[in-house]
């Protein structure tokens, strides 16, 4: 069969395109998709890492059933949900307010935004270690709290009640700069005429914020809600560095427990099953948000 010259050209340009993205596709296939599928397979097995590759028995859905009676799993799931439910709104509300304040009422906008952005691009390990010092009994954070009148503050990271909130505070602090950056770029594209019209109609600054800015920025907020939710559900590095899930299991989160059961307990099958549960949870949350957006996101 002969192709028409037009179709031949189209085919050729398509092939060229695929050739260009081929290295990337191979990478994704080899290092992301295949391992993902493999993890689905081994989530139905009792694979113990030390028994070597391929040495496992299929046990059906046993892993998926067992985890709900595993206290470590349920506790870490509750901790993860608590973590996300606080961190996501706190980050986004704080970022929105700060972004608007910087945009409207600040001199030296750029340096301030840069300063806010620094923690996000700093190495998370370094950030976490600095915060460990901040939280130590002689650290600046503890002293600040004391000077504000709380005479005997807890040993933040050494206290079962406060360890997770302390890490949450740090996470909000380090993520807020990123959200500010996204909001700022959106704010700069807002239609000026709408604000002028509102001003003529007598809307004060708060009303403009409440009725215009929040609405105009709703697509950005939607994007941020989805992405911060996913990242905060996957929190791992600060936990590993600051508390290793302790004291007790008070700051154990899902990804940290998946890591522990895979690489300390060597239960690869079980860990894979939990990873898939994590994936399903994230997928479900994202779908719910996707459907919910019709109610509050205006484009």
């Amino acid at each position, binding site marked *: 069969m002969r192709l028409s010259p037009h179709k031949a050209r189209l085919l050729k340009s398509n092939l060229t395109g695929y050739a260009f993205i081929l290295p990337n596709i191979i990478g994704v296939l080899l290092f992301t998709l295949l391992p993902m599928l493999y993890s689905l397979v081994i989530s139905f097995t009792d694979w113990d890492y030390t028994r070597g590759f391929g040495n496992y028995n299929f046990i059906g859905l046993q892993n998926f059933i067992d985890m709900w009676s595993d206290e470590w799993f349920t506790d870490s799931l509750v901790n993860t949900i608590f973590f996300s439910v606080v961190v996501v709104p706190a980050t986004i509300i704080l970022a929105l307010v700060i972004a608007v304040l910087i945009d409207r009422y600040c001199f030296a906008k750029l340096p301030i935004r840069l300063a806010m952005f620094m923690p996000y691009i700093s190495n998370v390990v370094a950030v976490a270690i600095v915060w460990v010092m901040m939280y130590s009994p002689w650290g600046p954070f503890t002293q600040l709290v004391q000077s504000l009148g709380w005479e005997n503050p807890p040993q933040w990271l*050494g206290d079962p009640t406060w360890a997770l909130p302390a890490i949450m505070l740090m996470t909000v602090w380090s993520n807020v700069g990123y959200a500010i950056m996204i909001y700022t770029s959106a704010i700069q594209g807002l239609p000026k005429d709408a604000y002028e019209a509102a001003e003529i109609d007598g809307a004060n600054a708060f009303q403009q914020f409440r009725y215009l800015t929040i609405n105009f920025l709703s697509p950005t907020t939607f994007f941020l809600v989805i992405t911060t939710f996913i990242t905060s559900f996957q929190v791992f590095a600060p936990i590993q560095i600051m508390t290793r899930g*302790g004291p007790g299991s008070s700051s154990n989160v899902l990804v940290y427990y998946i890591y522990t059961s895979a690489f300390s307990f060597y239960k690869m099958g079980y860990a894979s099953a939990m990873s898939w549960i994590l994936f399903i949870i994230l997928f479900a949350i994202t779908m719910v948000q996707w459907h919910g957006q019709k109610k509050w996101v205006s484009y």
Partner: protein
Amino acid sequence: MKHLIKILTTVMLLSLVIVTPLAASGSSETGTGEDVVTIRFWGGVPPEAGPQASVDLFNEQFADQGIRVEYERFVNDDTGNLKLETNLLSGDGVDVYMTYTSDVMAKRAEGNMALDLTDLIARDGFDLTQYGGTLMESYYINGRPYCVPTKLDQYGIVLNKDMFDAAGIPVPTEWTFDEFREIAKQLTHGEGQDKVYGMFWNSQQDLTYVLQYLVAQTNGGDPMYKSETESAFDDPVVVAAVELINNMMNVDGSSPTHADSVTQKLSQEGVFLAGKSAMTIGPWMVRSIKDTDNYPHNFVTAFAPYPVYAEGQRNYTQGGYGDMLCINPKSEHIEEAWTFVKWYATEGMLPVVEGGRVPCFNTYDPQEVTDAFLKGGEELLDSETTKKILIEPADNYAAPSITNHSAEVKRVFTEEMETILLGEQTPVEGMAKAKERADAILQQ
């Protein structure tokens, strides 16, 4: 001009392409001829603390036999061991390596990561019991030798002899939990930043070895287990040990609390060697005692046996064998690796003795070992108690035999222990909970 730049760039890029592989192959060939076999040896000790000197010695002695050993350090924590095991499972990147605990050893033997040495041992008449007694058999897995234990893990309380002298307390040779607690109280003084504690438990590093040391002397080598399917966390000795630590941290104030240790990331070097505690738990920091550049101090360090539960309850000597040398079954040079293992175990360890590791083979001269151990720290280590507590082998060690789900059981213990030390539950309550949780895991 444009052409010149283009030509220059091309030449530079070409030369990079050509030179890089040359340089790479050049570096890997230095010192190795055609017929030299290179053995890659992985261990957890920093090379400068002895292993490099030991390996150099071997390379010198065995140059004419065409064997060369290269030492690589992995950090002996979860991540480091994972790196090692990934290497072992995926091929022959490692020929000889160290395993540090019995439970990990069992996993590696059963997971085909360690070579069954039965045949090599039989062929060469290298029966391990002739070098280390019947205790060697405790390190067999399912009745077969998969490793050669090389180090004597015999520990005791590390103490600041100057502080003991100043308080008029003789270095103890036998003591119970109560006497130990009393002495720690006496040695505690000062307030705030100047406070000197009687004891430092080093609890932020690991809470399970505390149990190991205090309980094993009475109950034997499996302080966490009653049997394969039952944990021992309700045992009176275990509960008493937990109470001892809890009382010293939270009642007497004679040791830094667990929360302090965790939140301030305390270390034995930072507390004991800085003169902020009179005693500490683990003599594996002998290396740092000698390192007065980094840890300046001038007091004499002595050693005492770990306290026991009650008078007459010292049934075993805390200790056993460690630094278990294994051979990767996938190695292409098993014969040469075996040669190195034999050499290291029987005569190659003197350089690592200087770093604080005592050999367990009887092929070494005890005086030579003591001298090497004290070398560079003659003024800082009390030679008599060093020899008696850390070097002279005993004949009644508590040998471990159970490793069932040990990582999970340790984690359960650590969590409940932390909750106890933070004052959220009493030792009796916490250990009852630990037993319930651990038993559920063991009976799976």
